[in-house]
Structures are given as structure tokens and as C-alpha cells.
């Protein structure tokens, strides 16, 4: 005992502190919660019965049953994709006619009337306007259909049941069941899929969902797959089977993407993401009638327009870049040709060529313009330009696939090129819109870099292996 009684009290308190429960703070918080719960249930009257209604129970039992739940999910996904694809065709063509054909002609006549120099109209119209108009025409209609449908299912309460059904599968890969939803959203647009990962409230699982969303074949890449499968894969079999084989090839690539998504989720959760905090919870909200108009409005504003705006912001500079590298000549060669020559060895190793790799560099802003860019660069480098426009560095598409094929075969393309390009289209860096979104969502340059480099590393390895085996087996 010292002379200072205050000191004695403080010393006693210090000694007694050690006798507190070790998780004393956790218990304290727990008791605070418990007390609030007790107060709330004593003084707050609930008008709604907290019990689930009989029809809700029956619907839940049907939608989450082993035998009925999975087929329902596949059916729903098929219906959504079918409505999107068949519904987007007409408005897409309308926009293409309006913006790409009429709009470009209109701008040209306007610039001609103003006696604008050729380089200015080339850069602004053939470069920036055409590329941006293209991206809008290809992207807007499917997104304007796909996202509202998705939101309606979410609003009704079906999507949380899908996450519930698939959770054990995703758990194996160290991921959250809700990643099933962000993955599906990625089939529409990876940038929207990344934004959608906000529904995952666990930091580690959310990062996994963000970093692997790119393995969902997006809206901008489906056309590449379909065109290549049709003109290179479908023709390998008798014509009555070609449609089936081409479709299977495209679906095979999409499924391969799902395999890569699971594999890389598994890998990430056990390596670089081990240290991130993790938790799990999944609320199954009560079913409610979807509010159709409100859904249309919010999904148009929140998802479609934001994603579209970002795409435009990135597509415009890409258009300018494509025009500039094909039209600026240094020492007799265009910048594009220098790029193609530099990338040719790596392209050959991966079963591709320099043109394709350069097209992917130019098309980082938007996957939609990969095929048009390849065509533009190929016609520039080969004399075999059939029906190509007079200006160079302009993106356009062939309506006749036979002409396209003869152009590509003339430039040295083989079945191997097509197969490797289909693989590379799945396994390459996300577009700049998606990368920017990843940066906005994670606030981390590190994770953005991982998101960019991981798929491209997979792509280089997979394509090189395929090319190696193919050539070893005597293919060309």
C-alpha cells in the first residue's frame, strides 16, 4: 500500500483488468446488440407477420430443389440470352445505318462544304466518329435489353435464390455464391459485372469476383467468336452440321471461360488474396412483384448509360489512334506497319500474327472494334483488299462472309489462327472501360494491374501451347 490512495485504486484496476474475459470487447459489443434487440422487440410493434407465406415456401422449395432448381436456372439464363440476342438485332442495325452509314456521310458532306483539310476530316470523322458510332451501335441495344431483364429478376427475388443454389460450388473455389450473378452480368458487360460485385459484402470474395469477371465472354466479344466459328470452324464439317459445330465452338469458348473463372478464383483465394478478410451471408428477400417502369428507368441510368458513357470516352481516342497510326508514315512505312512487324514474332508463337496483336493493342478501349480493326489493318497490309474503302485506317465490316474469309486467308490465316484468336479473345486483358471500373471499385493500382495481367498471361500460355501442339501434329 502506498501513501496515495488514488494510486492504490488505479493499481487495483490494472490488476483486475487481467481478469476480464479475453474477448471482453467482443462480448461488450454483443451485449449492446442483444440489449438493443430486447428493447426493439419490447417496444416496436410489427404489423407484418414475420412468418413466410405458404406460397413463398412452396416457390422457394421449387426454385432451390436439386431436381427442379438447376434446370430452372439454365432455362432462365437461356431465355434472357435469347431475348437479348434476338431483340438487339433490329435496333443494332438501325443504329448502324443511322450513325455509321448516314451519320458518316453527313459529316463528310458537312466538312467538304466547309473546305476542311483532309487530315482533319480523316481524324475526326473516319477516326473518332466512326469508331465511337460503331461502339454505340453494337453495345447499346443488347445492354438496354439485357440489364433491365436482369434487374427484373433481381427485383422479383429470383437472383438471390440462384446465388443460394450455386453457393456450394463457388465455395469450393473460395468464392461467394453471389459471384454467379456478377459472372452472368459479365456476359453482358464486364464493366457492369465489376460494378455488380458491390452486392458481395466480403472483401476477399468481392476482389475474387472483380478479378475474374473478365473470364465471362462479354457482349463485345460474342460477335468475334461467332464470326470466326462460322467462317473457319463450321466449314470443317459437312454443311448440314456446320451451324451446330460453329455454335458448339462458341459455347465451348464461353464454358472454357467459366472453367478459367473457377480455376483462377481457386488460385487467387489461396495465394495473393489469402490475407483479405472474409465473411459470408446471403439474404433471401421475400418475393415481390417487380416494379417494371422503375426498373427500366434505374437500369438504364445506373447500368446502361454509365457503362456506355465510359465506353464512348475510351472509344473516341482509340478511333483517333487507329487513324493516326495507319496514316502517319515514317520513312515510307506507317506506324502501324512498324507495330505489326514488331509484334509478328510473338504473334507467330501464339498461333496468331502481328496484325491481330496490334489490333488488340488498339482495341484495348473496346472489344467491339477488334474484328473491324483487324480488317482495317489487314486490308492496309495486303494488296488483296476487295471492296475496301479508299481511305485507310477506317473500321468497317464485310456483309459477305466469303469475302471476309478470302481476305483473311489471303493474309495467311489458317484454322489455327482462328482457334487461337477465339482463345485469345477470351483470355486477354479487360477493356480499358473495365480496367477503369476495377480501379474505381478497388481504389488499388495493384489489383487493377493483376486484373490486366493475369488473363493476358493465361492467353499467351494457352495460345502458345495450342500452337505448339498443333504444329507438332503437322497442322499449319
Amino acid at each position: 500500500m502506498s501513501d496515495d490512495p488514488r494510486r492504490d485504486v488505479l493499481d487495483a484496476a490494472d490488476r483486475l483488468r487481467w481478469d476480464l474475459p479475453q474477448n471482453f470487447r467482443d462480448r461488450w459489443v454483443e451485449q449492446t446488440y442483444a440489449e438493443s434487440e430486447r428493447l426493439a422487440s419490447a417496444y416496436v410493434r410489427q404489423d407484418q407477420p414475420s412468418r413466410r407465406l405458404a406460397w413463398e415456401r412452396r416457390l422457394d422449395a421449387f426454385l432451390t430443389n436439386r431436381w427442379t432448381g438447376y434446370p430452372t436456372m439454365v432455362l432462365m439464363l437461356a431465355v434472357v440470352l435469347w431475348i437479348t440476342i434476338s431483340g438487339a438485332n433490329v435496333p443494332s442495325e438501325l443504329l448502324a445505318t443511322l450513325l455509321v452509314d448516314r451519320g458518316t456521310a453527313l459529316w463528310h458532306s458537312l466538312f467538304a462544304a466547309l473546305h476542311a483539310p483532309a487530315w482533319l476530316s480523316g481524324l475526326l470523322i473516319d477516326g473518332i466518329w466512326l469508331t465511337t458510332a460503331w461502339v454505340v451501335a453494337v453495345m447499346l441495344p443488347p445492354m438496354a435489353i439485357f440489364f433491365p431483364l436482369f434487374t427484373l429478376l433481381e427485383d422479383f427475388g429470383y437472383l438471390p435464390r440462384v446465388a443460394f443454389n450455386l453457393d456450394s460450388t463457388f465455395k469450393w473455389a473460395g468464392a461467394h455464391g453471389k459471384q454467379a450473378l456478377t459472372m452472368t452480368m459479365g456476359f453482358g458487360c464486364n464493366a457492369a459485372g465489376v460494378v455488380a460485385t458491390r452486392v458481395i459484402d466480403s472483401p476477399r470474395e468481392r476482389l475474387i469476383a472483380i478479378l475474374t469477371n473478365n473470364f465471362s465472354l462479354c457482349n463485345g466479344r460474342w460477335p468475334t467468336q461467332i464470326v470466326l466459328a462460322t467462317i473457319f470452324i463450321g466449314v470443317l464439317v459437312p454443311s448440314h452440321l456446320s451451324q451446330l459445330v460453329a455454335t458448339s465452338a462458341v459455347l465451348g469458348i464461353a464454358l472454357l471461360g467459366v472453367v478459367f473463372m473457377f480455376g483462377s478464383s481457386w488460385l487467387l483465394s489461396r495465394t495473393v488474396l489469402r490475407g483479405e478478410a472474409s465473411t459470408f451471408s446471403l439474404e433471401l428477400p421475400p418475393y415481390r412483384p417487380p416494379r417494371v417502369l422503375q426498373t427500366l428507368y434505374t437500369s438504364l441510368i445506373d447500368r446502361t448509360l454509365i457503362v456506355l458513357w465510359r465506353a464512348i470516352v475510351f472509344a473516341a481516342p482509340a478511333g483517333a489512334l487507329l487513324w493516326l497510326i495507319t496514316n502517319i508514315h515514317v520513312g515510307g512505312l506507317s506506324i502501324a506497319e512498324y507495330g505489326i512487324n514488331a509484334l509478328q514474332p510473338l504473334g507467330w508463337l501464339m498461333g496468331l500474327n502481328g496484325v491481330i496483336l496490334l489490333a488488340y493493342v488498339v482495341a484495348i478501349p473496346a472489344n467491339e472494334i477488334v474484328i473491324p480493326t483487324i480488317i482495317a489493318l489487314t486490308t492496309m497490309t495486303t494488296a488483296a483488299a476487295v471492296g475496301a474503302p479508299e481511305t485507310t485506317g477506317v473500321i468497317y465490316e464485310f456483309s459477305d462472309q466469303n469475302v471476309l474469309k478470302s481476305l483473311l486467308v489471303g493474309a495467311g490465316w489458317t484454322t489455327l489462327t482462328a482457334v487461337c484468336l477465339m482463345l485469345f479473345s477470351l483470355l486477354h486483358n479487360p477493356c480499358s472501360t473495365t480496367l477503369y471500373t476495377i480501379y474505381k471499385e478497388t481504389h488499388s493500382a495493384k489489383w487493377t494491374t493483376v486484373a490486366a495481367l493475369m488473363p493476358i498471361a493465361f492467353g499467351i500460355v494457352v495460345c502458345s501451347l495450342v500452337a505448339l501442339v498443333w504444329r507438332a501434329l503437322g497442322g499449319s
Partner: protein
Amino acid sequence: MAEREQLEDALKLLYDALDSGETVRSADLPVSAELVAAELARDAGDGTLALTDAGREYALQVIRAHRLYETYLAHRTGHPADEWHRQAHAVEHTLDAEAVEDIARALGDPLYDPHGDPIPTADGQLPPPRGCGLSERPVGWAGRIIHVEDEPPELYQVLAQAGFAPDVRLRIEATGTDGTTVRVAGHTVTLSAGQAALVQCDGLRPDEVFDASVIRLRDLREGETAEVVSISPLVRGLARSRLLDLGVVPGSVLTIALRGPGGQPVAYLIRGATIALREEQTERIMIRRRAASEAA
């Protein structure tokens, strides 16, 4: 830096040895000459080493940094328990006093690390040692765990999986040649002698009782109603606050609403909401069955 690490490791080794009543000959400790030169240790005569006051204080600060960092890893990150020691061991030599105090403040000045070891205070205070091994208790004895040793890792893994953690209550059900059978964390497990040796226990506090009717949420069956008793201390940090946010708090009433297609996850009806939880969570939530008539 390598020099500091060597010195601090030697100091900790010496502190641990002396603390458990062993003697250390200066010839056996790698950098004993440096320790003596730095006036952290001195020759106690006959070739054995003793710590100086400065040496003891320094050793306690290194231990404080180590245990605080382990606590930080346990509460704020997702690193598994078998990595805490290695990471803390690497970091403890790089932290300065200010960084250590920042960590302590951010964690709310914790007193114990996740294994139940006391964290020396900033002025080097430690509680007197207490408790004793699980294997020294008689059948029927009920108490609480105060420390779980994490070495060797494969034995610790089994204990953690079974729900052994500081402040968890247990009761000895039987002892025999096949090991010690214990009722702990809502179920009954039999520990080998090696596993039991890792667990230090103390008596229950005056306000505590051992309740054998407590079970784990994963053992609840369809149609039964239960009341939450507690969440295991093994659920920490974000995972813990998320459960509390969802209404998994002592006194909450819950029933099973729905099972996933493969049996997992399981959705529970809790406070009017349907929440799905995974098995690794439901085996860490302690409940008590309620008669259906009690269900509010």
C-alpha cells in the same frame, strides 16, 4: 536490420528460458557476447546468463509487438491461424515503439493475444501466471479455457476446428486410455494426450455456469426453434460484426427456413429475414433449443 533481429531473437529466447526456470549458459546462446556488451544481459557467474532490467524491458517490448501483431492479423485480416506466428515473427523486429502503440490503440488496447497469451503492457506489466493443464482436472470438472498452444500446428488445427479457444467453457466428461472426453463449444470431443496438453484451463468465474444444453447451430434440425446463446470467440473481426448485424445476437430466436440443393448452405429465419449461412459459421454459433410453444 539482420543484427537487430538476431539480438532480439536471442533476447526473447533468453527471456522465455529464464521465465520457465531454465538456465542458459552463455556458450549456448549465439550472440551472448553482444547481449552482454549492450548491457541487456550479464554473466550471473558460473557461465550462465541473467537479464538486466533493461534487457527484461526490451524483451517484453519485443513480445508485446509480436502478440499485438498476431492479434491484429486475427482480427483485421483473413490470414489463417497457422500463419500468424510466422508473419508476426517477421514484423516484430521492424516496428518502432510508436507503430506498436498505434496498433494497440487501433485494436482497443487488447490484453490477450488470440492464443490467450497476455500482451505485456507498454510499461512492461504482465499478470501472474494462472490455470493449469486440462489433463490435470478430474471427471465432472467444469471451467474455462485460458490458453491454447498453437504448436505443433497439426494438433492445434484439430483443437481450433473443434472450437477450443480462450474463454470457451468446457466440462470433462470422461478420462480413459483413449484420451480425455470433453463437452466443449456445443458438442463432445475426445482429445488425445498430446492435444489435451495444449489446453490450459482455469475455474469458472463466480457469475458463470456450465450449460450442457448448449449445442451448435449446425446441429439444429428442421422444425426446431432455437435461441442464440453466443458466437464463438474464434469468429473475429469482420465476420463477427457481420453476424451481429444480421441479428445473430444472444437471445435471438431462429428456425431453419430452407436448405441448399446439396444440403448447404442453410437459410435461417431470423428476426423476420431469411439469411443463408455456411457450415463453418453455423458450427461457431452456440444455441439452445426451445420448446415450440416458447417461440414468439
